[in-house]
Every structure is written in structure tokens, then in C-alpha cells.
């Protein structure tokens, strides 16, 4: 199978280049990550992140034939050759397929991604109805792989000011949680020409999410809540 992979090592390369590889797949090689590891066994200098190899840790996000995805759950049989692999777009490249995710996590941290409830907790669990709990489905499952935010043109232009789809999805995860008391502060935190409102519903985020989540929808719900409290 033929691959063309983005290579850049700041210690020795003046600029990035694409390197071609051809690899013989073995029985049992099902996902893109399996093939990349065969390449890495031939060329140990190829840099990428990887861990769980089942799509739950979010390490191996990359741009695959022009579309962001997780290598470990991208079936080889669906890929057109040569498979073109690039780092996630819009973030600084540290080396090869490894990007600097600081900006992405900074935005995640900026939405206060933790439950706020200053009432003393009860002896047992806080109660929540199954219906209220269901509001968190489609939100809490995010693996922070950054496939969505790095496919969003608004995030490319303003990664320092626009929170981006991944972190906004998490912002809504806490707004939607009946146990959280900070909705008003959370909305204040996003009420700004950039932080939330740079989303132009391009919907690349929902299109690429490897977990099938829909940040655009969550962003819409945040906007609804803002309108509601203005009335």
C-alpha cells in the first residue's frame, strides 16, 4: 500500500517535505494505525502520537487524505492511494505528525471544564433524573483529539480568541448538567465577539468528529440560552 507522509524535524530540516512509503500489509492489518506502525518499524524516525488503538484516548488525530480523523479507527479499506498523511492543520508542528496542542488545551481550560456547585454535597449522590442525565449524551464522550477544532476555519484564523468546537462542546456539557450552578457565569464567559460568535456553522466539526458528536448543535444550544436570558 502506498503512502505519502508529511515529514519535518526542526533539528535537521529547513522545511517540511512529503516522503513516500510503500508497505506490505500483513494479515490482521485493519486500521490505518496498523499500516503506519509497519512504516515506523522500517523507519524509526517517523514521529506520531498513539496509545489506546481503539479510538478512546484521542492521541492519533491526523489529517488523512484531506480529512481529520483518528488513525486507529480509520479502516484501511476505505482509503484511496496513495494515502496522504499530514499533521492536524492550523496548529504548530513539533515534528512530523506531532502538533503542539497547547492552544487547543488552553481553550479547553478557559471554559472552566469542571462541575461548579458550591452547595455542600449530600451524604450520598446528588440525584439526577435519567432524562436530565440523557442531556449529557453526545457531550461527555469527547476524547479531546482536536479533529474538530483543527478542521474549523474560524479556529484556524483565531485560535487564541475563538474557543473552538471541542471546548464549546464541553462548555455546553456543563451548562446542560442539572448539577452545575454556574450557567450564568459560563454564558458570561462566552459572551464576546470571538469566543462563541466566531462559529459560522460551517459544520466541519460535526462532519469529522470520530466519535460522531455534534459540536455545532451544542454551540447552537449555547446561543439559544444567551438569547433566552436576554429576553
Amino acid at each position, binding site marked *: 500500500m502506498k503512502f505519502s507522509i508529511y515529514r519535518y524535524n526542526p533539528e535537521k530540516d529547513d522545511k517540511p517535505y512529503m516522503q513516500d512509503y510503500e508497505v506490505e500489509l500483513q494479515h490482521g492489518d485493519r486500521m490505518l494505525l496498523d499500516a503506519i506502525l509497519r512504516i515506523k518499524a522500517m523507519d524509526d524516525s517517523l514521529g506520531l502520537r498513539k496509545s489506546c488503538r*481503539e479510538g478512546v*484516548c484521542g492521541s492519533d488525530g491526523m489529517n488523512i487524505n484531506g480529512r481529520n480523523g483518528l488513525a486507529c479507527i480509520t479502516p484501511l479499506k476505505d482509503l484511496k492511494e496513495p494515502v496522504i498523511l499530514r499533521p492536524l492543520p492550523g496548529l504548530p508542528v513539533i515534528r512530523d505528525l506531532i502538533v503542539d496542542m497547547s492552544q487547543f488545551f488552553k481553550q479547553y481550560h478557559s471554559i472552566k471544564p469542571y462541575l461548579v456547585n458550591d452547595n455542600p454535597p449530600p451524604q450520598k449522590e446528588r*440525584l439526577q433524573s435519567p432524562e436530565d442525565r440523557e442531556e449529557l449524551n453526545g457531550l461527555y464522550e469527547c*476524547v479531546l483529539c482536536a479533529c474538530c477544532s483543527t478542521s474549523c476555519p474560524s479556529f484556524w484564523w483565531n485560535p487564541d480568541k475563538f474557543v473552538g468546537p471541542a471546548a464549546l462542546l464541553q462548555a455546553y456539557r456543563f451548562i446542560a448538567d442539572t448539577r452545575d450552578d454556574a450557567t450564568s457565569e459560563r454564558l458570561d464567559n462566552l459572551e464576546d465577539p470571538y469566543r462563541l460568535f466566531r462559529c459560522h456553522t460551517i459544520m466541519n466539526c460535526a462532519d469529522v468528529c470520530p466519535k460522531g458528536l455534534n459540536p455545532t448543535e451544542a454551540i447552537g444550544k449555547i446561543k439559544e440560552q444567551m438569547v433566552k436570558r436576554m429576553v
Partner: protein
Amino acid sequence: MALSRQIFDTVIVGGGGSGLRAALQLAEAGHHVAVFSKVFPTRSHTVAAQGGIGASLGNMQEDHWLWHMYDTIKGSDYLGDQDAIEFMCRKAAEVVYELEHFGMPFDRNPDGTIYQRPFGGHSQNFGERPVQRACAAADRTGHAMLHTLYQRNVRAHCQFFVEWMALDLIRDYEGVVVGIVALEMETGQVVIFQAKSTILATGGAGRIYHSSTNAFINTGDGLGMAARAGVPLEDMEFWQFHPTGVAGAGVLITEGVRGEGGILLNSEGERFMERYAPTMKDLASRDVVSRGIDQEIKEGRGVGPEKDHVLLKLDHLGAEVINKRLPGIREIALKFANVDPIREPIPVVPTCHYQMGGIPTNYYGQVVAPRGALGTSEVIPGLYAIGECACVSVHGANRLGTNSLLDLLVFGKSAGDHLCEWLKTNPQHRDLPHDAADRSMERLSRLDGAQSGENITEVAQAMRRTVQHHAGVFRTGTLLREGVEKIREVAKRARNTAIKDKSRVFNTARIEALELENLVIVAEATLVAAEARTESRGAQAREDFKDRDDKNWLKHSLWYMEGSRLDYKPVNLQPLTVESFEPKVRVY
């Protein structure tokens, strides 16, 4: 060249469930704590846990921590230490409620309480019938828990060193642990971290097996660090084979599938677990179910062209239950087995999953090791270990499902609490020894200097195949003896590896070479301890010694890297407040 140095009260190596739980306790108390992780914390392998956290909340039917304690001891095949098991089961409800207060998105019952599902080996009234004890967030409990703990640490302003690999412990001339040496992956720089106390929370080393549910990062780094620093490793012969890894792919399918009503079938369509475990059936403990499956395959009732797996049937649960309670499993089955479990069964096979052994500790997380001629266990000052890398020992010879996440919470918190007290009476940092970083620098300079040598991928493959073949579900003396010899050859090769990439910037080849050094230590400990233990207990099933031998083997093994030597220590059969559970024949 002098290395740069940073100073903390406590350094925690590992940002998974136990490391984050301990960090939270320390950070919220205002201590100066640093967490080191090879990956961004939410990528730690806790994220892959699926089924639930065991706690006798009694939300579904009557339950009691004493029943949980009994189940855990029986599950451990009586090798678990009963003081630590009582401690864990009594604390379970408290740590689960806390996690809920932190924001954990547990599934709910109609009355608003936490939903609990049945799980293997968990029973009501000392083995009478299955009980619903596993507190669940769909089949993504580990993911939900790890993210919740990370989020709470963000709130507590805990300091993280992300994508740093810890290389070695620093012990001073009196044996006190005074910090670690660590490598920043992005820059390749090596830094000494001086600390009053060090917590190892590096998880398991399931990657010593060829077929494993474990992530690539599970390379036993903490075990390697401890072993190189002269600390023994306890009960390393006991590895849990999860009954249901996706055949061929190794990806985990939670026991929660059977908890929700899924059943195992052989090639004749027979629900064979009824023969092996008449009461608990498919929900017997994992060692029992894995042996049942392997026995069916050995006797020719496996499924598929190679007759090498069995089927996990859950279509009878209906689309609604599957989509609500087991959505992640459906996703995995579709992706990795090419089947939709709403219609077809999932091909599964026992797959290495969990390391019961590890760094010996007490239930405060303090590392303990025999000292002097009398061999009494003494605390190694300044060193703690928690989670899968530790052996406290609550899992003994076989862990019950849901007790791993519980272990992370209980002993993470316990170590954090103990350290908060300990730091009060130990306000000073001890001096670093002059050779603090020598071992690490030697390891790195060997790799940097080696122009030719063994290929990392090939040596790693030889190790995994050796362990898989020689220390699998069923073991014999001959197989194990050959395995010990082979793994020593592999260990020699691992000391002579070379990498082509000598770059400093995010050199993943170098990281993998360093990880391999840790893995082979764990692999050797496993084979040596398994060969010596001439009995069958829990996950160690010897075909040449089929029975449990309490007279000779009701004891923990301790493996020392120096001389690859074994020692033993007694099992603690004395709980904290209740009567001891005496070893009995184990029937499910």
C-alpha cells in the same frame, strides 16, 4: 554537564486514575505537587475502562460492603491481603459518592440514584446470587471517570508535566527515595526533580503480551524504575486474561455485556459456562470464564475457520438496551469485528488485560519491602505506589471486574491523605546523592552512542511472543522453564538495542527503546515467578499442578532484579475489624 533541577513536595509519576486521585488530594490541601505523564492525562489507559466501579451502594437491591469483601477475597483465590480488601470495600461508597460530587456523569435510576449493573464474581449474601454493584456511565465508565478527575485537578490548579517520561528513581545513601530523573519528550532535555516523596502511578505492563487489551503506553515504567532501584516486584506471575477481547484485534469488550445479559456460546451453540459455573454462569470470575473458553477451544468447540474463538451473543437484549447501556461496545464491534451486535454475536477470545502483581505496598500506598535477615516488611521512606503498578494486594491471584477503578480511587486518595500528614512532619528536602542521575544518563548515552545493535521492533516482538506462548492461560513447568531461558536471551538483546534516530526533538524511537527496557524486566519477573509457583491459583493455571496448594503456596512472591532472585512473604489473612475469611474451595 550539570542537569537542571526542580523541587516539589511530591512528584507523581503517571496521570491516570490513581495518579490524578492522589494529585487532587495533595493539590487541594495546598501542597506543591507535580504530575508527570507520557501522554496528556486524559489519554491515560484508565480511559479505556468500560463496565463500572464496584461499590455496595445498594441502589438496585440490598448490598453490603462485607459481601463485596467476601467476593473480592474469593475472587483473589485467597491470595489477597484481607486488611487491604476490607479497607477498599468499606471505602468504596465514599469514593464513588465523591466522584459523583466531582461531576461524574453516572447513568441514573428512575429515582435519581446511580445506576448499577451486575458484574462477574459480585454476589449477594456470600455467593448466593449475582448482585448489581457496578456503578456505570454507559460502557464508558473509565473515560467518564478519568475526564472528571482531570477536570477536578484543573480546578485545583494542579501542575502537570505532560509528555515527560520518568526514567529512574533517585535513592540516597540511606535508601530514602528523594525524587526522579525525567525526560521531556518535546525537547529531549533531562531534568532532576527533587521531592520529599514520590508516588509511582504508572499503570500496568500488559504490553509484555502479544495479545493484549492494553494501550501502547502500558509498558511498566514504574515497575522498571522500582526494580532498578532495588525494590522487589510482588506476585508478577498473576496476569488476568479478560474472557472477551475481540478475536484477532484484542480490543476489550466489557464484562458489562454479560452483566446486562449477554452469554457465551461455543461452536455447537451451547451456553457452555453453565457447565463450568452452575450458579454464576457467564458471570463467574474472569479466570474461571477464560479457562472455560480456552478449554472449549482446546476440545475443538471453538468457532471460526481456525476454531480459535467463541461467540458473545447479546442480540436478545434488544436494540434499545444495547444503544443505551452498551453504545461503545456496538461501536467497537462494528469497527473491529465487522459485526453489529444488535443482530450478530461478537467473536471473542481471552486476552491479556490486567496485572495483579506490582510494587508491594501497604494500604496507605507506602512501598514496603523485606529488610534484614528476618525479612520483616518495612516501609521504603519517600516512596509510594498506587493503582495497577502497585500490589497492595487487593486483587491477589485474580481481580474482580470493577475493582480496578475502585482500587484507583481508594488507594489514590489514601496515599494522598497519608502524604498530607507525612509532609507535616517531614518539612525538609533531603540532599540529593552526587550520582542522582547517573543511571539514567548511562541508559541514554548508551542509546545515543550505539551505532549498531538490535532492532527495537524485533526485540519487542520476540518478548511478546515469548510471554504469550510460555505464560498464557494454561501453563506447564516445561513451557515456563523454556520461557525463562528465552526471556533471558531477549533481555540480553534489549540491553544491546540501537536506534537510527538520534534526534532530541520528540524522538519516539528513543522512548520506545526506554520502554522496552522496562517491559523486559516485567516479562522476566513474570516467567521466573510463574515457573517457581508449583500450584494453580487464580490466574495461574498449571497443567502439571492443577490444584491450589495452601500448605506451601499461600504466600506472595517477591522478585528482585538483582540476580533475578525470588523471595516470599505471607498473605495477610487478618482483616482490620471483621473475622478472617479462611481459604475454601472456590465454586461459582
